């Protein structure tokens, strides 16, 4: 498979692209289509219906799990935003010899396989005697959410002209004011886009959650997981379609934030020229 065939045969390239994307998107399309199917069996489309959506919204356990997920997502994102931003600003200022190790540590939660992180936290919380539930979930989710925000903010800071802060201090601002008036507003888009990412990850997580949620508290993905382990139900199709819609919305919002971010960065570049 070289460039020879691609260049000589654009039709082959087009066909290959089409086939791969078909395979990637086929399952998703099936879920969406069959969520509106009348029949319970995901076999043939017998007629349009919203019955599974109605059933879903009458399912109290599911709704409770959704509320849990939302609370957990918002809280862990907020706490992560504070910790992550502090960490990023701190990391960008220190000149210690251990800086490399610190940076490695800051993304470690993303490098460790989820299953090991989940297991580690379970053992840790057990040893501390923390009751498994919302609190352990909150700590656990914060651990893997922080790196997303930290990485975004750090990237933004490293692209920022250090002269901006110096300019503020030169014009009469104390270090603290310079941070408040200049650094923080300029980082804000990165904090936001990192937070969106973190929120999405928190709403998405099954593996770590399973280890630390305890018997009484369930999040939406965990609920879905336990249901589909037992087989296919159209109610889940409906739920998945809604989750898909929400995901795309979040994705769109983050793209928008990224774009605002980008114009800021372009402006920095322009100034450099």
């Amino acid at each position, binding site marked *: 498979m070289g460039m020879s065939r*691609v260049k000589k045969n654009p039709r082959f390239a087009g066909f*290959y692209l089409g086939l791969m994307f078909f395979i990637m998107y086929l*399952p998703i399309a099936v879920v969406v289509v069959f969520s509106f199917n009348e029949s319970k069996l*995901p076999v043939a489309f017998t007629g349009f219906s919203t019955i599974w959506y109605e059933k879903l919204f009458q399912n109290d356990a599911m709704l409770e799990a959704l509320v849990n997920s939302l609370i957990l997502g918002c809280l862990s994102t907020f706490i992560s935003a504070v910790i992550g931003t*502090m960490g990023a600003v701190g990391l960008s200022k220190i000149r210690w010899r251990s800086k490399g190790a610190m940076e490695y540590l800051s993304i470690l939660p993303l490098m460790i*396989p989820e299953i090991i992180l989940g297991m*580690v936290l379970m053992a840790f919380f057990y040893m501390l005697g923390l009751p498994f539930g919302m609190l352990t979930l909150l700590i656990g989710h914060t651990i893997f959410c922080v790196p997303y925000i930290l990485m975004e903010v750090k990237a933004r800071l490293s692209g920022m002209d250090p002269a901006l802060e110096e300019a503020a201090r030169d014009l009469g601002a104390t270090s603290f004011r310079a941070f408040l008036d200049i650094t923080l507003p300029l980082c804000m888009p990165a904090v936001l886009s990192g937070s969106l990412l973190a929120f999405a990850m928190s709403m998405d997580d099954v593996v770590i959650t399973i280890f630390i949620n305890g018997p009484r508290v369930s999040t939406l993905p965990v609920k879905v*997981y336990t249901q*589909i382990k037992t087989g296919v139900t159209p109610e889940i199709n409906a739920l998945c379609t809604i989750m898909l819609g929400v995901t795309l919305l979040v994705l769109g919002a983050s793209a928008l934030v990224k774009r605002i971010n980008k114009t800021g960065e372009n402006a920095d570049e322009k100034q450099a020229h």
Partner: protein
Amino acid sequence: MKQYKHLIKPYIIWAAALIVVPLIMIVLYAFTEEGNSVLTFSFTLENFAKFAESTYVNVIVKSFRLGIFTTVLCLLLGYPLAFIISRCSEKSQAFLILLVTIPEWINMLLRTYAWMNLLSDNGIINNLLEMLGMKPVSMMYTDFSVIVGLVCNFMPFMIIPIYTSLSKMDKSLIEAAYDLGANRFQTFRKVIWKLSIPGVLNGIMMVFLLSVSTFVIPKLLGGGQYMLIGNLIETQFISVGDWNFGSAISMILAVIIILFMRLMKKMDTQEE
């Protein structure tokens, strides 16, 4: 300026307490006797000795084989895709890459579940076969269904790094190769492929790490009996309750991963 340095302190405390300490604990668990109270410190290697049992050896071998197979398949299917995308006009490149990444944003459960719809015994594919007058094929709960699920889930992790290294490549290098008399195949082999190797290694590393430690996908598409390292860890911790053995397994998994990363790094530096 100096005051900001203090911002790092709460972060360090947080990271140390919640990342470093728990990791150390797991090492302790792995080397201590059963009974879940690590702090008694009665050290033993028994947890690792258990691995000699053929069932556990088989699980590791199976996980490894599956991880390698998935990685190779992702590379074979993903490289051409990344290559084709990198040859497209800049605008369609951005769009195509977005298409590649969107599924990654959709819950992994959802994507896996969607395959259950398609592959199950009375699922869509079997129904189509029936309509065409063919015998239904049992696809769920086999190696096939697990591999389909793994490849589809992890493919973007192979495509994106390869695409990045291909698109960063200076186009004049390819022209220079032609100019110096290389034909298309030689140009690909000696220039394009060589320069994309860092991306390829990155992709291999990510896909292998994900597929060797996965447990949700094999559980859903392979059924309750399908045992990989990930499932073994989960069962030890959640169902069996033997945390010491569970910790030992995850240490073995971690060692495999670290060795693999070392290998990849070495290959990468050798290339340069």
